[in-house]
């Protein structure tokens, strides 16, 4: 084992960590917001159909193809090149982020939908009879209960998105995987380099797992035999 090489490799891979984290956090934020909107749309019949079609398409096609479609495909349309969005859409960064957000929204909206369906009807009725507005019920009762229900499934999605950010390396971006790929083509020491990269992803996943377990205990202490908040 060439520890000097491994050490150097870690150091240079970590230079890609900020970009990886950037894609990861922003796609979760954007995807989560869009997922909430998709679920609110589901309260109307047309909105439900649109949201259903959206989820069908983005969950049913590979993320890699979605990234390529946005990065290579959109430029083929004249109106896209004319639009005010072109300064963004010609940048690989924004194309990658957009693809990740759209993809994450599809999965997260289904996770949230499951959580919302699990909210007991009686809890909502109790809100209504206390005179709460629809918005207050959503904010104070429905979403908090749905979120607690969805948390275990959502922590999977969070880890899944961390790994999905690796795909942006295919459109020239130098995230951790991008740096790893470049290093491999220079040195041909694929196994060591990929192990280093995998170890960093693994370490972050471990943190997520620990955090979500802690968060779950904190949000729903009664499930864990704690009698007071």
């Amino acid at each position, binding site marked *: 084992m060439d520890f000097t090489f491994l050490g150097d490799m870690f150091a240079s891979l970590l230079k890609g960590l900020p970009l990886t984290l950037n894609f990861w956090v922003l796609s979760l934020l954007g995807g989560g917001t869009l997922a909430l909107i998709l679920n609110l749309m589901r309260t109307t019949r047309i909105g439900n159909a649109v949201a259903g079609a959206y989820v069908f398409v983005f969950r049913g096609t590979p993320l890699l193809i979605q990234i390529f479609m946005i990065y290579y495909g959109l430029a083929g349309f004249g109106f896209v090149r004319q639009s005010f969005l072109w300064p963004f859409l010609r940048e690989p960064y924004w194309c990658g982020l957009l693809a990740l957000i759209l993809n994450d929204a599809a999965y997260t909206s289904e996770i949230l939908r499951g959580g919302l369906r699990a909210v007991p009807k*009686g809890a909502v009725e*109790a809100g209504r*009879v206390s005179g709460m507005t629809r918005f207050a019920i959503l904010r104070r009762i429905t979403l*908090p209960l749905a979120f607690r229900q969805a948390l275990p499934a959502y922590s999977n999605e969070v880890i899944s998105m961390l790994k999905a950010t690796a795909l942006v390396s295919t459109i020239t971006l130098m995230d951790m995987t991008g740096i790893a790929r470049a290093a491999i083509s220079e040195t041909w020491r694929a196994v060591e380099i990929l192990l280093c990269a995998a170890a960093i992803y693994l370490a972050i996943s471990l943190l997520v797992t620990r955090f979500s377990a802690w968060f779950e205990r904190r949000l729903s202490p009664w499930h864990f035999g704690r*009698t007071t908040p």
Partner: protein
Amino acid sequence: MTDAVETKAVGPALSITGLRKTFGANEVLRGIDLSARDGDVISMIGASGSGKSTLLRCIPMLEIPDSGTVTVGEDSLSPKGGRLTRAEEATARRMRGHLGFVFQNFNLWTHRTVLQNVIEAPLFVQNRSRAEAVDEATALLEKVGLAEKRDAWPAHLSGGQQQRVAIARALAQRPRAILFDEPTSALDPELVGEVLKVIRSLAEEGRTLLIVTHEMGFARDVSSRVVLLHQGQIEEDGTPEQVFANPRSDRARAFLSGHFDRTR
């Protein structure tokens, strides 16, 4: 409690006229007229499917009647077509603010502690100060015998305790009338008594109560009035003595004899 007295005003606490409701082809309520004055304790009895729970749920518009009028205090609603407009929804919210509602299945908010359940509406609907809401909630929890459970989670309480918290939660809204939808039907037999005791104390305080119940002995003891529903219509309406001892109709007699034979 003084606030029960404060809210008394002219006119009935609530009234219902010509109320009709169908679920699909099933006509559940077929023209109900009922009104409650402040201080009335009205028990609504009847066989399963007679429409008594639906009637109770129509008052705060948890079910929207097909026709008829519901009045609570100064607010009145006559929804058409089984739905509420935006303006009617606002009126309904005001009406709900004047009513407490206690469900068969308690329906406490499981993600909030006992105290948080009780102060929710005072804080976030009625915009009272936290100190005032907490003080009042503490007093109410003491009243229902659960002062020591204020920081417990609903999941850690028995059914009877949860229902008593639900009653405290309803009282915290300072309602003009409290509606009970079979408050003891989901409880183990040994827990029924503690809940009935609390409801009885509310009746003795002079609060206005509408109680849908299968507890005939309780209805006879605490009510000022008993209403018997049969197939969506009011079959009997009178004092407990009138309804239980001298029911006018054969149907009422049959229903009551069946019940008292079973419970004795």
